[in-house]
């Protein structure tokens, strides 16, 4: 009996390390592909042909071929650490670690990104940074509520436990699911909430936070965005516990929905974004939590 337990633990450790490694390697590939597909689908929605699916990779490789220009010599370090912590977050997630820790690490990464914006020291990057902060303020509550909800539904904060739990958290957390989908739009930098930096040029902040980052440094930012996609989608996946197939299907559906939203909404202003996300979090997220806690 005891032996069995030990083996099991080792097995779990093994699996989680393998998952972590897989993420390290496949994460950006997956992220890049999804981004490429996203761009293609968006183009089609706009009546265009669109770029090749591999375009995001070309972009990144291209950026590495460019000269490095900076405004301050120390500015790129923030980008390195942004990437580092994004990867770290992802690894934690895929190793099945504590969901709260994942969120904190993600926040830390995002903060490095924001600081990178400030460090850029141009009016647009600083405003971009402020806006990114507003965005963080908008989505943070809902993301934390997701973790709380997961815990209430599965009695564990561990991603590993959640994805192996036979119960489907979504059955208990429909509100939180809706709320999370809502804020995912912010996290994926999609219209209507692409306030701080948008994927497209043409907006009041030029390129927002990334205005002063170019060449290889910009490539790293792009890679960090690639790395971000798998675990953001992974959040959705969590709602389906061990029902993997269903989870994957819903992930795809949610992502498609995000693209659709991207293409059917005007960009909102930050006031609306913060208010709306908070209200959504309060109604769907918090409401869900209260109901759960009342049900016991």
């Amino acid at each position, binding site marked *: 009996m005891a032996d069995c337990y030990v083996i099991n633990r080792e097995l779990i450790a093994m699996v989680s390390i393998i998952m972590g490694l897989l993420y390290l390697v496949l994460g950006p590939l997956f992220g890049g592909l999804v981004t490429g597909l996203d761009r293609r689908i968006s183009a089609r929605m706009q009546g265009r042909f669109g770029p090749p699916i591999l375009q995001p990779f070309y972009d990144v490789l291209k950026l590495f071929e460019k000269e490095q220009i900076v405004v301050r010599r120390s500015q790129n*370090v923030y980008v390195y650490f942004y990437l580092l912590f994004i990867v770290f977050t992802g690894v934690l997630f895929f190793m099945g670690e504590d969901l709260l820790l994942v969120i904190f690490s993600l926040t830390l990464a995002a903060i490095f990104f924001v600081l990178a914006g*400030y460090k850029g020291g141009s009016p*647009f990057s600083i405003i971009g940074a402020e806006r990114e902060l*507003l965005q963080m303020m908008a989505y*943070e*509550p809902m993301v934390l509520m997701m973790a709380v909800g997961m815990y*209430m539904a599965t009695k564990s904060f561990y991603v590993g436990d959640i994805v192996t739990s036979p119960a489907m958290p979504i059955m208990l957390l429909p509100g939180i699911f809706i709320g999370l989908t809502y804020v995912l739009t912010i996290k994926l930098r999609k219209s209507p909430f692409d306030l701080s930096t948008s994927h497209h040029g043409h907006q009041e902040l030029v390129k927002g936070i990334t205005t002063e980052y170019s060449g290889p440094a910009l490539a790293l930012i792009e890679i960090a965005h690639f790395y971000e996609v798998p675990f953001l989608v992974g959040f959705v996946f969590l709602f389906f516990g061990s029902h993997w197939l269903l989870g994957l299907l819903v992930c795809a559906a949610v992502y498609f929905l995000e693209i659709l939203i991207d293409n059917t909404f005007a960009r909102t202003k930050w006031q609306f974004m913060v208010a709306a996300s908070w209200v959504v979090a309060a109604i769907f997220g918090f409401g869900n939590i209260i109901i759960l806690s009342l049900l016991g």
Partner: protein
Amino acid sequence: MTLAFLIMIQNLVLFLIGFPALAALILAGVPNNNFRNRLVWVFGLIILVVSVVLVVGFGSISSEMLSFHSKALEKVMFYGEWVMSLLILVLSIKHKKLAPLFLVVIQTSLLTWFELGYGHQLEAANNLFVDKLSLVMALIIGVIGSLICIYAVGYMKEFHEKQHPEIKDRRALFFFILFFFLSAMFGIVFSNNLMWLFFFWEVTTLSSFLLIGYKQNEESINNAFRAVFMNLFGGVFFAMAIIYLFLTTNTIELNQMLGLGGLVMLPVVFLSIAGMTKAAQMPFSSWLLGAMVAPTPVSALLHSSTMVKAGVYLLIRVAPLLGGTLAGLLVACVGGVTFIITSFIAISQSDAKKVLAYSTIANLGLIVMCSGIGTPAAIWAAILLVIFHAIAKGLLFLSVGVVEHKLHSRDIESMDNLIIKMPRLAWMLLVGMAGMFLAPFGMLISKWAVLKALVDANPGLTVVLIYGSAATLFFWVKWMGKILAVVQPEKTDETGISRSEWTALYALVTATIAVCLTFPLISRLMIEPFVFGSSTATTILTRGNSLIMIIMMGFVILFRFSLPKKDEGERIVETYLSGLNVDQRNAYSAPLGATKSFISKNYYLSKYFGEKNLSSIGVATSWLIVMLLIGSSLPWLV
């Protein structure tokens, strides 16, 4: 435990209470500034060392009662109480402040009546005691307190000689109060006799009052009276608690009271209210903001790191009794309201000290909330918060103090380019801020613990933490950004900062980082045994998670050292200014033929998070809750 051992502890404890008082008297008597300053160094270091020795040497004890008795001391306290009341009375009359006058009269008459009527029965079996919580508190007071005193040497020199020549130099008084205050703080955490505890409590009130009024201009005097008024309000509740306790249960000892459990709800509630006033919780929070007029070491020592912690200390003490009761829930609500409202307000503030003050109140609110919840996990989280907050906030206040002296402004917006102008200080501020909310640092760990505690105990309350943290994130990061953003390179100038200031700052930076690295150890040795009764290392933050946190910490430290020192072949270009750049990096050619610099200010969102609206909402709701709280305890009267 052997008797010798106990005696040693008792001696150390008495030393910690007595020595600062003695030192205070000596310092008051030294007229020469230089000599006094040197003495402050010596005394400060002694206190620091002794407190460390006490904790390191006797950290393993669980809880020891010390039956120290001294008739003389009690006399001193009795008369001391009178003297203090008289002092406040006289000053109130002098400055025509009726409200404090009124309260002090009530309080003194209550106590005089009580002591005269029952004085002979007011015997405590154990006047003092030591347990892990006291030790933790003592360590904070000893280390941070003495560091701040040392810092004050340089700061006050600069303060009087350069910055404010118009203010009368009363440094002898200043250090007298500072050390006397330390003595009182030690007294609070080691007292078991509630009368003693109350005495020390009142000493801190008085010290705070005198120090806030230190500048003796109209604003500081008004604020000082506001502070004393609110603290006296708490004091009255404290006194009533003692009296009621004694009259109904015939005891004035803390440990006995705690042992009585749910039978003593009324004194517990009243003590909580006293604690909340001292901890500047919402309806009473305005005094702490006013207290920011005092010189910065005062703000650091009294109004963020230690004195206000006396309030939450009391709450943590009674927390097990609050846990699970309606009163507890209400206390938690007060903390919650305070946390969320003040976090929001902090967004709209640009005065550095005010931001720090609001964040202090917010964090105290969190601690109060945990105490109200009262489950072991919550108490554990509360103590973590006390420790981490004391260190990081101390560091922040001290750095802001220095920056203020150098920049002649403490407005956050004036801290542009700080990373270039004063790199070392800027990094200290950054460490302090990171310590307040960032992932691998202490406060975040604590908040994490709070969240987990809340989910288990009362998921509804998590909402406060969740929204409040979002706000916290916003105002800290934008400040960090301000410091880091280099808009216009300037010369580095960090001269003229005294050794005493640097010493304190470096020590606190080290402490901030060290505490984070060693927190699993601290938790296991000091806090968990106190809270859970045994060392259950894996209860809340499992070892794996601690490990990950430490890895992250490593990354963050690595960050500081990965900043490039020299040219690595990048081409340096001007900032993007819509193509309008002229020569210098931040100048552009503007309309009307002008050449201008762009200006980037942070967002304050004052329309949404303005001080006025939010605080009136906060005060109204929290009054309501406090009224309910008092109401909820009234059934015990009959």
